[in-house]
């Protein structure tokens, strides 16, 4: 009866539950955002680039649910449609970064020697390169389209994955099952593909959602500096950027809704990532 009075030096068996709450909340947010993105045209009567001939900066309510912006475009519609670009770029960029980073990391980690040295120096160089300058340079080089932004943000993130996977592979390659595979006559590529790849992705799966959130913030930052998505394509960062003066003037609706959308979406990724991380840690114990 008195057992629960016992003082456990460390608490935390409920970790699993909080992790679950985090994962569910984050997941739900992202699903809602994704649905909003998919069904954006159905949820808004205005097109995202449609200009209201009656003027700009209409207050929320009436014709425009969340008002209109300085170009006379419907804020609500743009916030919804922007989710397509933001989510799309963030997820594609992280996916690309994961693929490239994993490949490099695995080669470096498993082959070791000069391959490792060479690849890791390249990764060092890219990582030492200031994020924004790299992003700016790539986007200036390639222009600001969807694909190019994906490449830009992937280029910024890939080195981290290469490092992560390399570290993981260096641990894994000492595992007995790798020795077992070698003695079973598996080829180098076979070992990498069949044994190292599936097992080295565990930490990647945890980091990737957090990274998606970060990618969205980078994208918004680039757009804020005018180097991201070109107007009039709806994108949260550029919408916030265009709306900053309006906030100062008390016209909150041009900048606050995209800001909140961005916040909520990044938070969704953060919650999901935090939850996954917590669950992974709980499992490790």
């Amino acid at each position, binding site marked *: *009866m*008195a*057992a*629960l*009075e*016992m*003082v*456990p*030096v*460390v*608490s*935390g*068996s*409920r970790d*699993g*539950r909080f992790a679950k709450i985090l994962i569910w909340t984050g997941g739900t947010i992202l699903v809602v955002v994704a649905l909003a993105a998919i069904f954006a045209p159905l949820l808004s009567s205005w097109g995202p680039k449609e200009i209201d001939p009656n003027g700009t900066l209409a207050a929320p309510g009436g014709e425009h649910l969340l008002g209109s912006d300085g170009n006379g475009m419907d804020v609500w519609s743009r916030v919804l449609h922007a989710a397509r670009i933001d989510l799309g770029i963030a997820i594609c960029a992280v996916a690309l970064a994961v693929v490239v980073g994993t490949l490099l990391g695995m080669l470096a980690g498993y082959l070791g020697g000069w391959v490792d040295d060479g690849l890791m120096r390249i990764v060092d160089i890219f990582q030492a390169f200031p994020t924004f300058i790299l992003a700016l340079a790539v986007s200036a080089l390639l222009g600001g389209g969807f694909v190019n932004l994906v490449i830009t943000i992937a280029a910024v993130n890939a080195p981290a994955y290469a490092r992560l996977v390399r570290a993981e592979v260096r641990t894994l390659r000492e*595992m*007995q*099952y790798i*020795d*077992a*595979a*070698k*003695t*079973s*006559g*598996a*080829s180098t590529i076979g070992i990498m593909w*069949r*044994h190292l790849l*599936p*097992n080295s992705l565990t930490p990647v799966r945890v980091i990737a959602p957090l990274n998606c959130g970060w990618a969205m913030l980078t994208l918004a930052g680039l757009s804020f500096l005018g180097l991201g998505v070109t107007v009039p394509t709806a994108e949260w960062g550029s919408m916030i950027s265009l709306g900053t003066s309006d906030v100062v003037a008390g016209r909150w609706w041009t900048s606050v809704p995209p800001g909140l959308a961005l916040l909520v979406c990044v938070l969704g990724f953060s919650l999901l990532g935090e939850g996954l991380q917590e669950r992974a840690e709980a499992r490790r114990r």
Partner: protein
Amino acid sequence: MTAPAGTPGREAAMTVSLLDIQDLSVVIHRPGRSVAALSNVSFTVAPGEVVGLVGESGGGKSMVARAIVGMLPNGSHATGRVGFDGADVLRMDPADLAAHRGRGAAICFQNPRGALSPTRTVGRQLIDRLVTHQKMTGDRAAESAKELFASVGIRNPGRRLEAFPHELSGGMAQRVMISLATGCAPGLLIADEPTTGLDVTLTREILRQFRHAADTDGRGVLLISHDLASIAEVCDRVVVLYAGTVVETGPAAKVLREPAHPYTRALLRSVPDVNGGRVVPTAGGMPLMTAAPHDCPFAPRCAHAGEDCRTARPETTSLTDGWSLACFHPQETALFAPQEAAPASPSDPAPLPDPQGGSSVAPGASVTADNAEQAGRVVLRVQDAHVVYRSRFGSGGHHALRGVDLELRAGETLGVVGESGCGKSTLAKLIMGLVEPSSGSVAVAGKTVGKMSRVERTRAQMVFQDPIGSLSPRRTVADSIAEPLRAAKVPADARAAKTEAALSRMELDNSILTRYPHELSGGQAQRVGIARALVGQPDLIVFDEPTSALDVTVQAQILDVIADVASDAGHGSVFISHDLATVRGFADRVVVLYLGRVVEEGPVDEVFDRPKHPYTRALLGSAPRLGESRTAEVQLVKDLDEADAATGCALAARCPFVTDTCRSQEQTLQSYGESRAACWRVPELTALIGKSA
């Protein structure tokens, strides 16, 4: 409220219990499931008494220890009473509990290197205890710490105080752990698996420390171990746990020699004996209890179980003075009756009749005459192999093997023994082509290992130490077993057929094929590992400590399987182990490795019964033997890590018979009778040992 150290004499203490556990049950509630970790456990420990708590993993041993210091895991629900010096630990308030921990009961943790804080010097950690529990101040504590270190056998304690845990060897860390626990001046000292992972030459020395604590300081000692045989000799009494219940309690000698409970008997018979006694495996594994059992938890595995065992739980009944057990069908026959009649001798290797109906493993006998014509084929030849692990920067490196020669024929089994760090695993990797020899050569079935094609490499197969870790976590069992076939480009349907055949030889069901490694028990995983080694019908199988990670009864099962596999005439086997007893079970010849060198080599019975080299003698002398306690005739003088490698004999630094010649001359293998040993003093040794004894 805490037991003052050293006050009560042993005799007086026996009457008063220090620890009095009554009807303790612990249920752990986790989301989705509950685990009955302990069910109605009762036993006592008196001051000055050493009590052994024995059982396999999952039996609830550690939970008892946690309950005693009031550190049950979250979600635990405990009932009953953990009486300590009159108070109930389960009902202590935080302040009392804080005072109780350490000063009342202190634990020596199982994995001492993990239990020492990595970022604090061991000296500081000891001083923390002294300051807290013995109210010492700085200088006094430092002085006292030095003394404590010295008393647990740490040489150069002043220097060791400044060491960080990672700088210590396993044995040294265990000594430090003991000093930390005794530094709390506890009434009750709890040692959780204190000798796991330690080399045999150290085990006895460590166990003696606990006996010492009980005898000289009058502490109660609770020794927790899975290995009844090894701790029995220092214990006054033992308590055997199975599935959270106490199945047998009694004086150590009684329980060891005449165990009455079938589980205790199974436990003891599962342990291979260095004298060549047989291993009798018990099928099945320990169940995970979700609630306190209503029947005998051992019944499903028990050969004597009747209907009563399956319907009601046996009460704990007292047999004689202090001996009690929970069983409807206590066994009274002597455990080793036949053996005691005919003590182990090399001239009598024939398999003994099996009274219990389990399959038996016949040591040495597996090589039978009908294999003789096959035996001509050499499957492994290692010639003067050296392996040096180079450090990445600069020169130097670790010389793991120094000039090893081996030859093995098909149908033969070679045992390789030695302590940790002797180069056993490197030898395995060398044979498998996982490391390159720095010089010398390795050939499997006549082909040099380094020059083999992928398919040829599969001619040698290995069974690994960590059964689950050697299976790729995200590959199914079927995938893992078939891997060597895949390399050999065997078509998919043939692969499936061969996989199933190998599996059925391992007595595993086909349903296991689609499972993943983490869904397997250790025993199942190791059977899968053996199936993988067998599936391609290799020329050579290397067993690298295949049972060291397994529980005792499971180990017996696996050894049984391995004995069967090793007796195949089609391939040769190399069996590597730190545990001499398991090697004796089925090797034809044995080599003893020490610091990368072969120090003794010969037919298994010759080496085990008439060891030549002082090191072999020390190893064999330290190995636990069921039912007898004798001190080793040769005791090494230092821990392995303190022995610095110098020229001359590798053992020189630790050998009690060392002379200047030993220190200056490299020793090579010389024939002494049927075996060979790398020691020039072999002829004088018998006399020398007699003198020192």
